[in-house]
């Protein structure tokens, strides 16, 4: 992982945060871009809590994680993305704790000189975060609370990257 205290225009920084608090994507994007004229492309992804999953109404979601390993796993995923694509900045914010439908859960932003690298790295980060970072979702539905099962589609998405 790059030293986040000394970004350069073309190498940027990796910034990984795991916390309960919500985040402001407009502010985060502005901070990431601030004054860096080497950036030509910013690809971002926001994962949002829906009110329905597997056909059932979801009233709330609780996200548990493995403190310490979470940051380590996300750092390793970011390093892997940097090894594959020529990106400038990588920002990953993942919330934990209690969330309601329409709440933001995760934010990934990648800056690069060109759009192809930004898009690829952003989608790669999400696919690997979904399968390699120790987060677990528990949903509150009318039938009670239940742990969300891992999706085969997520393994398939991560598998695409070879």
């Amino acid at each position: 992982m790059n030293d986040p205290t000394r970004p350069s225009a073309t190498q940027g920084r990796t910034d990984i945060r795991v916390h309960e608090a919500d985040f402001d994507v407009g502010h985060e994007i502005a901070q990431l871009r601030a004054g860096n004229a080497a950036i030509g492309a910013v690809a971002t992804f926001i994962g949002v809590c829906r009110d329905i999953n597997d056909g059932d109404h979801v009233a709330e979601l609780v996200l548990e994680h493995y403190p310490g390993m979470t940051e380590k796993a996300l750092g390793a995923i970011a390093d892997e993305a940097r090894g594959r694509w020529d990106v400038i900045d990588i920002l990953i914010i993942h919330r934990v704790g209690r969330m309601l439908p329409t709440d933001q859960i995760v934010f990934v932003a990648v800056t690069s000189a060109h759009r192809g690298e930004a898009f690829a790295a952003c989608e790669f980060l999400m696919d690997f975060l979904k399968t390699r970072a120790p987060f677990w979702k528990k949903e509150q539905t009318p039938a009670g609370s239940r742990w969300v099962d891992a999706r085969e589609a997520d393994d398939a998405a991560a598998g695409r990257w070879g």
Partner: protein
Amino acid sequence: MLNILYFARLKETLGRDTERIELPAGVADVAALTDWLRARGGVWSEELAASRPVRVAVNQDMARHDTPIRDGDEIAYFPPVTGG
């Protein structure tokens, strides 16, 4: 000593989120530790059955059955991850 952590569904069904144990005699890798825990019987043999999709991390890195375990390690048992 080993520091063992349990997360998500496993934490609930096994009724604990952490425990400290002496490194059991003859346990040198993940497979052996899982066998040792499974030998506790009841929910342990059910939840840690080979047919269950249980994941293991050693010192906060994803591990395999043959990943070595040494005294002082932090071992975590958990279901497949579902974040993001």
